[in-house]
């Protein structure tokens, strides 16, 4: 029972005389301030008497608003009012505050004035629908209660207040302490009553059944109610499907009909002056009926996708799922993102899908670079030396926090994701330092794993042709290698998200793509290194498996009855293999499946990095050509000479990457030198763009075929393919424009007089295409 009484009679003390007396002591332009309240604090103050700020200026009593409301005489009238409230509810989901939509309904406020400050449960239980007004009231109770639950879920799901949605309830209790069951009973009573009427309006029943279906979904969150007894154990996916079924049926019959008798009386801004409200006066906000149902359908479809997250049990799958949702659904409603976050990650207990973030980070390590016997030994819970155990566990804890942040960032809105990933670069860079330090320290305790570098990389170091020494070995460093790969991936996302968010101007495109290509090339090289490490370990383990099999067969042939010594022989064989650091407690043969999985993953990542690298390079050359052709407008320089200003702009643009130790951000001078743009003519740049785009397309097609092999069409891959085609076509168009003005001279540096147009919609958001219009 709520004891809060926002509608109680307030008594105010009149301070006018005292105020005027104090004010008369001030001169013109003189201000009162104290250290605790300066002009800065005053910025958030409301200005009393300013109609744009003071929502209490035209206060009207709720009673007088209720008086003007006509009663609802028909089923269609009730349906219209319910749909209008639903439209406001969806406007709230889109970001407007409750006082601008749902709470602005006089009937909603009337209902809340009864339930706030009284025994709401007793009141609800006493309700027994006998008229259409009562049916609307039951719908209002359900709407209010579900909003209350959704607000709690979104707070728990770390939805950003004010930025994504306004979560304020303005000190009102939205049936907060009332069990859903009471509301569901009222809905059921209403449905029963409608069925006794001549006008058994099915549309109206649909609306009430939708609220029931929504409570089934929300019941998985509140965990204290399953509205229908036989659905107690029903999976959430089925509840979402049922709600979607009802809403789909409602979309068909939703009509934009009007009931003029309610015009101007059902919704009012006057609530803003009656309740606890420190916001400036705000306009009413709604959406059309069609749009409201479309939005709810969209929300439920997102939920239908989101609930699949609970089935995921590997890190690559989880990150892929989250990144795909984030990329596809930049318009996802805050409740969907909050729900995903709620299902996925609990930051207070550092849990991801019911397991600790450290368990997940270990999983991620094993899936990538630590599936080898050495890697798995490394990640064991305990080691013989307690210092080693502590050092490794500390690292895993730090890595778990970084991993948790990465997971959580994906459920935010796209601009915030960009910012959070920018911050993540710094924390992953620190993690890399920690990994390198740990791996260096552990060398004191046991031999570290190595990678055998192919001969051609070490030939120059050989002093004699005849020397048949073992191949050179370099430290494998699987931990820092894993951090490096993840860090580079985040850096690439940050760089490319800027294109999606429209942050870069065209004149910046070439150097941002140049930097992206720099990162993707490094990542590609490092993935190849990881691939080599895995292949070498896998070969050894497979050889060992064959040896074990042969030994076992020999044993049988010798009729040796000691059948259980195969493990012992494995360890013996391990000792003779050209590898280091393997603990006897890890049987290399047992790691084969994990290493095979890792290799598959790394293989896909190599192909992805390869195509991204070439696509970045293609767009880098294309946009550099447009720039050289004089088609991009550069800003004027203020506060310095041009080269200094350009260097400042380069450094400011790449500031999120400036803190990274490895790979170090190339200086502006290094960029100018290594990009080579100054030495190439526009036509030469376009030839490069065209070549790289075609090559990228071939590689993307391989990925597309691989995805199609699993019976899927990946929208992201298709969009990448369109970008590669678009870049090649654009390069061709601009080349033709040059051939018109200068048929034979490939080295011409003449500027063109046409204009450029950036096309985004049909291409991948990370690779918009610049087109030339003559």
């Amino acid at each position, binding site marked *: 029972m709520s004891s809060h009484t926002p509608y109680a009679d307030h008594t105010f003390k009149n301070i006018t005389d005292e105020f005027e007396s104090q004010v008369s002591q001030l001169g013109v332009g003189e201000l009162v301030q104290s250290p605790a309240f300066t002009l800065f604090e005053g910025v958030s103050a409301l200005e009393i008497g300013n109609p744009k700020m003071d929502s209490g200026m035209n206060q009207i009593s709720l009673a007088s608003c209720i008086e003007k409301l006509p009663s609802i005489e028909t089923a269609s009238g009730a349906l219209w009012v319910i749909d209008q409230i639903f439209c406001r509810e969806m406007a709230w989901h889109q*970001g407007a505050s409750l006082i601008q939509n749902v709470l602005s309904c006089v009937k909603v406020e009337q209902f809340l004035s009864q339930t706030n400050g009284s025994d709401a449960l007793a009141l609800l239980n006493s309700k027994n629908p006998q008229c259409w007004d009562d049916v609307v009231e039951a719908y209002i109770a359900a709407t209010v209660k579900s909003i209350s639950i959704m607000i709690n879920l979104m707070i728990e799901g770390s939805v950003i207040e004010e930025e994504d949605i306004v979560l304020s309830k303005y000190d009102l209790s939205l049936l907060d302490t009332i069990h859903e069951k009471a509301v569901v009973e009222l809905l059921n009573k209403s449905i029963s009553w409608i069925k006794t009427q001549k006008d058994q309006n099915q549309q109206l029943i649909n609306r009430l059944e939708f609220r029931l279906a929504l409570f089934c979904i929300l019941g998985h969150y509140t965990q204290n109610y399953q509205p229908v007894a036989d659905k107690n154990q029903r999976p959430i996916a089925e509840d979402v499907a049922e709600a979607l079924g009802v809403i789909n049926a409602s979309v068909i019959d939703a009509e934009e009909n009007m009931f003029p008798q309610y015009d101007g009386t059902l919704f009012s801004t006057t609530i803003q002056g009656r309740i606890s409200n420190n916001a400036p006066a705000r306009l009413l906000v709604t959406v059309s009926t069609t749009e409201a149902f479309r939005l709810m359908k969209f929300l439920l479809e997102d939920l239908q996708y989101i609930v699949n997250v609970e089935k995921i049990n590997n890190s690559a799958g989880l990150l892929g799922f989250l990144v795909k949702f984030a990329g596809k659904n930049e318009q996802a409603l805050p409740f969907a993102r909050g729900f995903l976050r709620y299902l996925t990650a609990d930051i207070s207990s550092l849990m991801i899908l019911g397991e600790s973030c450290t368990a997940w980070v270990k999983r991620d390590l094993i899936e990538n670079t630590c599936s080898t016997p050495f890697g798995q030994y490394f990640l064991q819970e305990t080691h013989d030396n307690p210092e080693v155990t502590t050092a490794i566990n500390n690292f895993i804890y730090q890595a778990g926090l970084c991993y948790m942040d990465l997971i959580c960032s994906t459920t935010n809105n796209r*601009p915030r994701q960009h910012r959070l990933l920018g911050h993540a670069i*710094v924390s992953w860079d620190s993690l890399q330092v920690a990994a390198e330090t740990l791996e260096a320290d552990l060398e004191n305790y046991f031999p570290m794993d190595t990678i055998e570098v192919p001969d051609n990389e070490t030939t120059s170091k050989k002093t004699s042709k005849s020397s048949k020494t073992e191949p050179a070995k370099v430290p494998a460093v699987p931990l820092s290698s894993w951090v490096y790969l993840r860090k580079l991936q985040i850096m690439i996302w940050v760089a490319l998200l800027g294109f999606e968010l429209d*942050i870069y101007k065209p004149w910046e495109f070439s150097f941002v793509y140049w930097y992206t290509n720099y990162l993707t090339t490094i990542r590609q090289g490092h993935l190849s290194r990881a691939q080599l490490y895995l292949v070498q370990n896998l070969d050894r383990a497979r050889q060992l498996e064959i040896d074990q099999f042969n030994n076992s067969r020999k044993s049988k042939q010798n009729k040796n009855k000691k059948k259980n010594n195969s493990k012992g022989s494995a360890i013996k064989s391990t000792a003779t293999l050209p590898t280091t650091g393997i603990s006897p407690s890890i049987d290399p043969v047992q790691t084969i499946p994990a290493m095979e999985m890792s290799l598959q993953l790394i293989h896909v990542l190599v192909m992805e990095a390869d195509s991204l690298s070439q696509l970045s390079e293609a767009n880098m050359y294309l946009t550099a050509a447009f720039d050289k052709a004089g088609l991009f407008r550069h800003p004027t*320089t203020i506060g310095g000479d041009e080269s200094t200003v350009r260097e400042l*702009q380069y450094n400011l643009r790449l*500031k999120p990457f400036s803190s990274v130790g490895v790979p170090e951000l190339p200086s502006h001078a290094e960029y100018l030198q290594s990009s080579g743009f100054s030495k190439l003519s526009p036509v030469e740049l376009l030839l490069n763009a065209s070549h790289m785009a075609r090559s990228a397309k071939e590689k993307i097609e391989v990925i597309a075929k691989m995805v199609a092999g699993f019976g899927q069409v990946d929208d992201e891959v298709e969009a990448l393919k369109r970008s590669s085609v678009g870049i090649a076509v654009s390069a061709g168009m601009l080349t033709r424009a040059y051939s018109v003005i200068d048929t034979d001279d490939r080295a011409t540096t003449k500027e063109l007089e046409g204009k450029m147009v950036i096309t985004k919609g049909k291409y991948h958001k990370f690779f918009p295409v610049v087109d030339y219009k003559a």
Partner: protein
Amino acid sequence: MSSGDKDSSVKSTPKPIIYRPYFKENEETELKSVISLISSDLSEPYSIYVYRYFIYEWPNLTFLAFDEDDKTQSDPCGVVVCKLERFRGCRNRGYIAMLAVKKSHRGQGIAKKLVKMAVEAMINLNADEIMLETEVTNEAATHLYENFGFLRMKRLYRYYLNSNDAFRLILPVTKASPIMSQFLQKDPEYLEQQQLDYMTQQGQIL
């Protein structure tokens, strides 16, 4: 803060316009005219205290434009309101809070001139960078600033009351601007020099 300026290109022969800083001594009339001009133009409702905060604290960073015919200079046709302060204890950050030009006076380059005056004033006061926010949909204002070399650094989701996103733009002025605060904060020599410059400059103003 937002910009209500729609003036990015010079469309007609400019009328004679007089530009000058805000006169603090004429506070009573001057402030009213600034509020009147800005509040008719901006999407955000600002209270009197917002204007007080900026103009009372940094009167030297508010610039006004008047018609030459407006002999009493009581009815500005354009205004820019800014501030300059230490940011995270390691750099001087200028901020363009408001920019407005009367509809009747747009297309004459008034906004461009006002921004130039404000930027130069802040540079003279040792600003390391100058920042502002503008609505993503306000292309004219975004282009105006970008032509001065401002870069879009962040997109701010649903930043304004009308639910529109904003771009945060920054004009880098010194080498301190592209360096992360956490690194600047660790450079004692730089900090000492900055503090000295800032204090000297503040002393000159006061």
